[in-house]
């Protein structure tokens, strides 16, 4: 079953075309990567899919819900971990989780299981603002799972993290694979390659290629994913 179906999506910000006739579908349980350089339209696409931003044209379905008609229903089954860590800085780790649980009316048992999954026990009483970048990102993703979303949007989840913290987060993201549908945006090619089942390459608002990593590599007769990405983007400059 398709978790996300996008048809002929268009978005303009004044004179700038952020998304131009984008069509794609994401299967339930898939870890789907959105790849592109700065200004490619990745965040705009995520914002539209999560109901944060209105599209100009096209159709978007989240499971069976039409985003134009059922946004409130969609909000109950999605969650987002934005580019910034987006946690409450003066609240402790546990208070952050409890706060978001209270917004979604989630029971405390769920929080305990998330604390254990994300190994947050060692920082549980620390204020969020005192956590390192890696822990803040970990908390940010943990918060996004409090509502038990069917679809999770991760916008540049490892941006600015060191290698160890990044690898640590990869493990967490991989542990979620297959359990929920994840849409992940990233600049990092190795991240997309390591994590994603399927990838969409965007450039200047256009969808250039979509497929598995192997399909994309094969498509342009290249050995490495990085070479394939560069060739695809440069071809369409």
């Amino acid at each position, binding site marked *: 079953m398709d978790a996300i179906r996008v048809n002929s999506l268009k978005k303009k910000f004044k004179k700038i075309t952020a998304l131009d006739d984008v069509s794609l579908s994401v299967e339930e349980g898939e870890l789907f990567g959105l790849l592109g350089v700065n200004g490619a339209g990745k965040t705009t696409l995520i914002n539209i899919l999560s109901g*944060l931003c209105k599209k100009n044209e096209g159709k978007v379905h989240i499971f069976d819900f039409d985003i134009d008609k059922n946004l409130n229903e969609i909000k109950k089954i999605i*969650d987002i971990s*934005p580019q910034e*860590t*987006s946690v409450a800085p003066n*609240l402790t780790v546990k208070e952050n989780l409890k706060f978001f649980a*209270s*917004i979604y009316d989630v029971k405390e048992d769920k929080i305990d299981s998330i604390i254990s999954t994300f190994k947050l026990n060692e920082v549980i009483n620390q*204020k969020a603002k005192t956590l390192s970048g890696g822990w803040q990102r970990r908390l940010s993703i943990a*918060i996004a799972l409090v509502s038990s979303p069917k679809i999770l949007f991760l916008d540049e989840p490892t941006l600015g993290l060191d290698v160890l913290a990044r690898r640590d987060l990869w493990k967490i993201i991989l542990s979620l694979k297959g359990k929920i549908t994840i849409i992940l945006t990233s600049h990092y090619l190795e991240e997309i390659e390591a994590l994603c089942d399927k990838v969409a390459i965007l450039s200047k608002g256009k969808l250039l290629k979509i497929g598995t990593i192997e399909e994309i590599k094969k498509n342009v007769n290249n050995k490495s994913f990085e070479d394939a990405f560069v060739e695809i983007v440069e071809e369409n400059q």
Partner: protein
Amino acid sequence: MKRTFNFAKRNFIEMFRDPLSFIFGLGFPFIMLALFAIINNYTNGNTPMFEARALVPGVMVFSYSFIMLLMSLLVSKDRKTLLLKRLYTSPMRINEFIFGYAIPGLCLGFLQSIICILGGLIIYLPISGDYFTFTQSILLFVSQLPMLVTSVFLGILFGSVLNEKSAPAVSSVFISASGIIGGSWMPLDTMGEFETFCRFLPFYPSVYLGRILVEASHTNGEKYIFDNIASLGLIPIVVALILSVVLSILAFSYQSKKD
């Protein structure tokens, strides 16, 4: 309702764990009262503006502008860290956001008012032996509520439209303005046309109303009474209250789509 309460609780904790709330929100009014009491003492009571009955209502209105500053900081920081973006994808509605922000601001304002009234009592009673009654204190507290609500919603408005760097800058203009044109410690009643201008803004009429209720005296020694200045002064108080609430809701709603 439950979400509003939970969001308000988060904002309450967030504000009360920030030392700025204690320094500006609660400590500063007390320090100002003490400072003006010392000046009044050294001028042998020749500065009527610094007598408790005239000063406390003025300091209350002035202090609310710090609540505005703290609110604008809270909202603009939540926008910057994208905490609000995350919450926009939740089932929370605009009214839940607005009241969730306003409730802790009002709580802080209530505390601030109590500190001003009790602080005035602690500082002034031993010096002058004169202070207003309990009933007058309650009336003063209630009379300043519209100005408190206006300040809280102005803070939400500024936090919605400005970033975390410009919000404090604009708020500080209001802080200065409320001190000067509110007549908190300036004898506006001796300033002719400037006083007339100040009557069109909500700060001075609110201070004026408070001074009537606690039987304060003008610079010339006459008591503040419910005259034309007071009755016409209710108009800017009510207009500012309505405008701040409506504009903050509109601005927050607009910004939630833009962010």
